[in-house]
């Protein structure tokens, strides 16, 4: 017996099915019944029933790539905040090898890094590493936080969603499994990407999202010149000063972040 439909919203304690089904993620068994433990959408695959959470915290897993911020420098490691209940550490030996150097010259507090989770031990110490393609420190750009469970939705099938955003906005976009997204490009385009990503997060549980994202990108990019003009002409009549201000902003971001 099954009491719910595929993609139905359930809440903790809802009875999903009888025992003939297998209990998957986000569910638990009690008195021969499978119940939901989360607020989420039901996913039925064959005889396996699971609940995809609408909201969650990132739990570090070996092999994940994450975006973290340096919060502390210790004698031989950096401590990083990775948007999770467990903070991570990056051993100095992973960056320098056997060489001894001052840690804060390489990465200082506030720097944002792209890392790999090397190991999570039984006491939930998260060891991070920088070995791998594309891993390292970010210079410039903006950070956007989304719910970690919505990361697959943002990436899309074989990266379809994320590639669309990259192509349309001409921004570099990097998504960490921990729900932190880094976007760098033209400042106005960064804003567009931010809006789109936030929209994806809000509507991740609905279907037909890819089309709506395409529409939203089109309107945001199509209207850009029009809306920008009207806004700017109200604020200031001297249009020539605009580009200058923009470049200043661009330069301003780099030293802050980098």
């Amino acid at each position, binding site marked *: 017996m099954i009491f719910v439909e595929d993609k*139905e*919203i359930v*809440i*903790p*304690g809802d*009875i999903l099915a009888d025992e003939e089904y297998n209990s998957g993620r*986000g569910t*638990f068994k*009690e008195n021969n019944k499978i*119940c939901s*433990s*989360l*607020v*989420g959408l039901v996913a039925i695959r064959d005889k396996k029933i699971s609940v995809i*959470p*609408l*909201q*969650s*915290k990132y*739990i570090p897993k070996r092999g994940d790539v994450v975006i973290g911020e340096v919060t502390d420098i210790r004698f031989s490691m950096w401590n990083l905040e990775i948007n999770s*209940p*467990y*903070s991570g550490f990056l051993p100095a030996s992973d960056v320098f090898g056997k060489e001894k150097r001052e840690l804060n010259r390489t990465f200082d507090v506030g720097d944002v890094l792209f890392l790999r989770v090397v190991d999570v031990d039984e*006491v*939930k110490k998260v060891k991070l590493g920088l070995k791998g393609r594309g891993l390292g420190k970010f210079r410039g750009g903006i950070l956007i936080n989304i*719910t970690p*469970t919505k990361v697959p939705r943002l990436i899309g099938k074989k990266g379809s969603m994320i590639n669309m955003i990259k192509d349309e906005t001409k921004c570099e976009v990097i998504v960490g499994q921990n729900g932190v997204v880094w976007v760098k490009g033209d400042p106005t385009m960064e804003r567009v990407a931010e809006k789109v990503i936030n929209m994806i997060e809000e509507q991740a*549980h609905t279907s037909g999202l890819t089309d709506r994202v395409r529409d939203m990108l089109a309107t945001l990019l199509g209207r850009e010149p029009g809306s920008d003009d009207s806004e700017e002409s109200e604020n200031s009549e001297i249009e020539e000063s605009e580009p200058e201000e923009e470049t200043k902003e661009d330069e301003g971001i780099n030293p802050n972040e980098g």
Partner: protein
Amino acid sequence: MIIIITNTNLGTGTETSGRADNRAFDELRKMKIEAGVLERADGSAYLEIGGNKVLAAVYGPRELFVRRLMQPNKAVLRCKYNMAPFSVDDRKRPGPDRRSVEISKIASEALTPAVFLEKFPRSTIDVFIEVIEAEGGTRCAGITAASVALADAGIPMRDMVVACAAGKSDGKVILDLSEVEDKEGQADVPIAIMPRTGEITLLQMDGNLTEEEFEQALDLAINGCKIISEKQKAAIKNRYGDE
């Protein structure tokens, strides 16, 4: 006097109950729950019942920096109940007092059995219950709101927790006491249950009841909880727009 407790005559209010606000003996005050009202909290809920206005916010699971509280095999659920100075008629001195410390403790104990704390070892889940306006029954309102906020934060739970009070005022056993009924009444029995299994996670009694009256009060409160439970469910589902 024989009191028949059924689901059907709930909220009819046809017979004059003699209650100050003309409610039937088994009628709840008007209520409203909304989930996800705070931007910066991981989960939040706003609840109104009668003259009570309560906000609950949940942060976490997050890193626990107080080493001595840390549990190696599970998360710690910390609750803080606080009443705003303007929440009552006479200004309440801000800060924790005997009563709010007690309610913080019982709220965390009422919620703990429902939460899968073992999924987040060495971390903490922080629940804040802020009473903006008080009119009797804030602890129940607080627990009910906190449970919605926990679900909204995506914290895995066995079941929702829902709280409601029954008691005795003017010699009658009644549901959901208002401030006056609580103060002038003979007894107040706040309970919290997990509605699916009916497990009781909080049971307090202030005042005197006979064994029979206590049974009546308990049944009334459990029925009240079940009604509130439906509103909780609706509040969470409403947040995501459909069904």
